[in-house]
């Protein structure tokens, strides 16, 4: 009986602590989600008397896919560039994390350098840097990479790739958090395994592929998810800009803008599902657990 009361008490205290979130979620998340889903099936006109809604059914979505001159194209271009950007960011983050994890001096300094952009990358500042050409890596132009891509690749894929090359540095700027996550993962690998492997004559190259990489595999998944969400939700891309433009256009309005937002969310969700399906399998041998 006493135990029952103690449990009940714990339950109530728990609810008390999470109640701010619960209220906030209902007010600023659940209700808006319901409302915007509802709006996306309507034509919405806002006048001084209030909101006037006309039921449209799937027309907004049909219009987005079949008639909208820009949305689908922008969305596809963005998805393509994200598909290029994710591996670039992940590989770069892993490389830098591996370098910093070596026994070097001034570790803190290098960590600080590579984390710096996280603090200053607001969409607007980054856009400004793009516009002034500060973001292009100076080396790329020299070796004819641009021409190579232009002549050898289909423009529908070549264009996004060229865009990325032109903005390479700033894209790499989106890897600050990922570097830290990889570093944390690397630091948790048991160093005895490395010693044992090198005594057995494994080269650093083999150690990387057979020990380091498998043990930070969970962190790769975390990083891919983080990168995807980060890229899709920052204001760098034209798709969300388009959504905002449609909000205040009289002929499209809030209803159409919300349906665009929902399509956008569905894309993110499907992409994340694919990522988890590919990288989430946990059937591999994990030396980190074996070492314990």
């Amino acid at each position, binding site marked *: 009986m006493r135990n029952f009361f103690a449990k009940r008490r714990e339950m109530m*205290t728990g609810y008390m602590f999470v109640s701010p979130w619960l209220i906030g979620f209902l007010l600023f998340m659940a209700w808006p989600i319901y409302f915007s889903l509802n709006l996306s099936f309507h034509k919405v006109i806002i006048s001084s008397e209030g909101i006037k809604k006309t039921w449209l059914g799937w027309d907004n979505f049909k219009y987005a896919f079949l008639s909208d001159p820009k949305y689908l194209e922008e969305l596809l271009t963005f998805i393509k560039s994200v598909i290029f950007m994710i591996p670039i960011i992940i590989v770069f983050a892993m490389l830098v994390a591996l370098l910093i994890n070596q026994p070097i001096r001034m570790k*803190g300094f290098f960590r600080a350098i590579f984390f710096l952009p996280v603090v200053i990358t607001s969409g607007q500042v980054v856009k400004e840097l793009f516009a002034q050409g500060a973001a292009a890596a100076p080396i790329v132009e020299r070796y004819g990479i641009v021409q190579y891509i232009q002549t050898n690749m289909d423009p529908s894929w070549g264009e996004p790739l060229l865009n990325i090359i032109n903005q390479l540095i700033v894209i790499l700027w989106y890897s600050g958090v990922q570097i830290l996550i990889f570093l944390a993962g690397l630091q948790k690998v048991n160093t005895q395994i490395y010693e044992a492997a090198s005594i057995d004559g494994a080269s650093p190259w083999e150690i990387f592929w057979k020990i380091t990489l498998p043990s930070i595999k969970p962190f790769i998944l975390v990083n891919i998810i983080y990168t995807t969400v980060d890229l899709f939700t920052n204001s760098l891309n034209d798709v969300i800009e388009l959504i905002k433009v449609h909000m205040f256009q009289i002929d499209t309005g809030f209803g159409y803008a919300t349906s665009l937002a929902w399509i956008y969310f569905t894309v993110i969700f499907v992409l994340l599902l694919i990522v988890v399906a590919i990288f989430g399998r946990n059937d591999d041998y994990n030396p980190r657990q074996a070492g314990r």
Partner: protein
Amino acid sequence: MKLEATTFRKAVREMDKSMLIRIGYKIKKFLLGKQGNDGIIFKLVVYGLLISIGFVYVYPILFMISQSFKSLDDLLDPTVQWLPKSLHMDNFFKAWVVLDFMKSFGASLLNSVLPALAQTISCALVGYGFAKFAFPGKNVMFALILMTFIIPVQVVMIPLFLLFQQYGMLGSPLPFVIPALFAGGIKSALFILIYTQFFRTIPKSLEESAQLDGAGALKTFFRIILPISVPAIVVVFLFSLVWHWNETYTTSLYLGDSMSTLPVMLQQFDLSFSQNYSSSQVSGQKVNINESIKLAGTVLIILPLLILYLFAQKWFVEVVDKTGITGE
């Protein structure tokens, strides 16, 4: 005698050989190291890579700073690459005027410090609830929190806009502060996660002993738990501050024309520049916008963040270590 000499020579040769091998081994060890990652060559490669990648990484910032000091002559002069001939502060004065710096700086502070404070406190409470108590529906709620992380703000933005409009909150920091008070707002899912992971590492016995001394759950939280959670609190506050500071998408939507934060002012830089300086044509000297002035404006905007980073760099970087965000 002769025999002795040959054996002696032979012995010397033997010794030379073994010395050579030993020296060779030492050189090899020096260059390549014992374990493959402690030799000098490896170290040189690591430092070389780190320095060159690091340089490329901060290149846009260096470029921006160098460019912002250039006068028009320097800008057009191809021989001037990194160091301007003179430190041309005029760009900054112009950008200061165009950005209306003091006013927009105040707006930026208001719209980032207040929501950040609210978020730091509310997310701590919620994170503690998830970390330490068992209650039905906990896992569902936690899944919902993770869900909110991937929902783009565009989905809920319009209903929220209408809601805030209805209550006359547009044009004030309230649309940011109020959701933040309820553990919502920019990236709050991440902050709840950070706190939850952090509080989990605090041993249960600490709270039990506080409870034995007669402290209630709230009192325990504020008197015992919060004081030892300074690392997590600082990390959440700093990130919340920075992310609110950098937000332009929802800021320009919710604040409209009544208040402009620094990044929003940068968005309208060209427009407000021509408003500020087109009249000066009358006085004979024509002022044209050029990229140096714009980049000076950009420098002014990120300068407060750079200064903050300089002092709080340790905290920013230790987010993963200190709070165990990656989980286990």
